[in-house]
């Protein structure tokens, strides 16, 4: 048992060593480029900061859905010969990811809170407790919740309108930049091939 614990600790240390070695290669979605692995302890709320992709990987990594926002965080790979355009794309994607995360986390949290308060007030009006006799949490049926759903939707309508507009703009920008970067890479590769053939 003690050996297992020691092995686990060693494994943990090994992961951290890899991270410090590749700190230039991956950027976190903690907002801003080049967030070092050493700083990951400072951002507990960003799940992306606790994960470190293997050193040999040249791709982005996508994680499980966040518990609050349900969005999957991405850890972006920084290629060695990243062009200014590529850097702009990566930073914009990181910024969009953070922005999205903030919006949906707050949206979902406020929904859950509002739902709980609604259930509480309705149950109180009925004279019931939050937990029934069996210890199970008492819930309202979908029909009873309908008033809350309608209310929540109308309260957040303006917020969603702003979000939608911004999201569409960002989505188009990211895709357009991706296209430009892909074109740039293809052009570069073509250029190298031409020089090789020339030599």
């Amino acid at each position, binding site marked *: *048992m003690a050996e*297992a*614990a020691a092995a*686990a*600790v060693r*494994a*943990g240390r090994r992961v951290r060593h890899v991270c410090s070695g590749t700190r230039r290669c991956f950027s976190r979605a903690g907002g801003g480029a080049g967030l070092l692995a050493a700083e990951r302890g400072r951002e*507990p709320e960003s799940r992306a900061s*606790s*994960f470190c*992709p293997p050193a040999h*990987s040249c*791709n*982005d*990594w*996508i*994680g*499980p*859905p966040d*518990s*609050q*926002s*349900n*969005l*999957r965080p991405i*850890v972006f790979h920084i290629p060695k010969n990243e062009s200014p355009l590529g850097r702009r794309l990566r930073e914009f994607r990181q910024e969009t990811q953070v922005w999205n995360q903030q919006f*949906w986390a707050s*949206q*979902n949290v406020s929904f*859950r*809170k509002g739902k*709980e*308060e609604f259930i*509480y007030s309705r149950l109180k009006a009925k004279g019931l407790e*939050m937990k029934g006799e069996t*210890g199970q*949490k008492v819930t309202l049926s*979908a*029909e009873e919740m*309908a008033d*809350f*759903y*309608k209310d*929540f*939707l*109308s309260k*957040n*309508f303006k*917020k969603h*309108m702003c*979000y*939608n507009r911004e*999201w*569409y703009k960002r*989505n188009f920008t*990211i*895709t357009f930049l*991706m*296209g430009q970067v*892909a074109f740039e890479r293809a052009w570069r590769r073509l250029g190298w091939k031409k020089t090789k053939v020339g030599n």
Partner: protein
Amino acid sequence: MSAARRCGPPRALTGLFVWHLPKPAVRQMPCKFMHCCGVVNKRWITFQHLNFLKRMYVTQYNKDLSQQAKPKSDPVAPPFLEKKHLGQEKTVIREIRPVSPLHPPSSETLNRNEFKAVNSAAVVEDLATAVGAESKEEKQWKEMKLQLDDLPGILARLSKIKLTALVVSTASAGFAMAPVPFDLTCFLLTSIGTGLASCAANSINQFFEVPFDSNMNRTKNRPLVRGQISPLLAVSFAASCAVPGIALLTLGVNPLTGALGAFNIFLYTCCYTPMKRMSIINTWVGAVVGAIPPIMGWTAATGSLDAGALLLGGILYSWQFPHFNALSWGLREDYSRGGYCMMSVTHPAMCRRVALRHCLALIGLSTVAPILDVTTWNFPLISLPINLYISYLGFRFYRDADRSSSRKLFFCSLWHLPMLLLLMLTCKKSLLEKEDKSELFS
């Protein structure tokens, strides 16, 4: 548990642990626990030790739950539960797997050595579970590398292949119902063209809706949400389906069908998709989107927009309402949270009324079919049973307004449409009959 009542600090500390729900708490736990062990009173340590492990399991349980993206199962302890008396957490613990075998706290007989053994075993277990949980989370991280083997499956899901198949079959029904001799080449070109147009439209729809799809149970496993394909590739795929599809329809069939196909893609991607989050009118726009494919099939065969085409379109249009309104009834929570403007959330009574109204309209449209020479008079008669049945379910949905009636109506709509189209095909007015009639009158 008399020790608990005697000592103030344990309760306060355990209270502290309750608030430490995020994951760093799991790593901090062993350290805090080691600190606790430094306290002198053996009896107090014993109780604290057990209580601490209780917290450990509660946190673990919550952490596991919190990994799931399902909004229905409440992962985070809701604000109201936290205010409740701590004693209630005992009931939560009973539901979790039993605590690992420890010597029961007969504190008088427990000597120091035994306690130390139990202590180190618990520490190792805590560390192992902490590392285990972390590696389990790490395993869930996937490299965003496109696997060519998976590409067909990914593209099938991106283009909503099952829905596309349904759309193509409605277009084929429109083609088959047209009062012209059946042309196989034209039929195949129409089917392929419509299929490609539908793939393109569905891909663009998914491209627009990534963060919204992530937050809804029904759609959270889509390829773009899971990062299996990049947005650029999705758009490229959509373009590479739309261009050949519309070109095939315009050049291989006729320009009218091509124009209808292009218009439908535009309507679905640029009108319906954004409108879903702006106004409930999106449902009517979506119904038109569903009605256009059979019209396309008809115009592909005849080359013109006849009354028969509009009738078929009308039947599909009316069918959309019981189908979609019943489906949306069960998704109200997700729609509300995600910001979708749907009748079922904003105007529930209207939602049910419209569904019923259109179920009855289907009976009316089936009766109009022979009048327009699309089918014989057998059709309204033999389609009456299924039309009455769906109307009955529509009425039940209207009256009861609950989940079971909405589900019944939705599932009925799934078999009702193919059945109706099949019956229509069997009752198609044959060309010979039409020629005889025209000769008689001439």
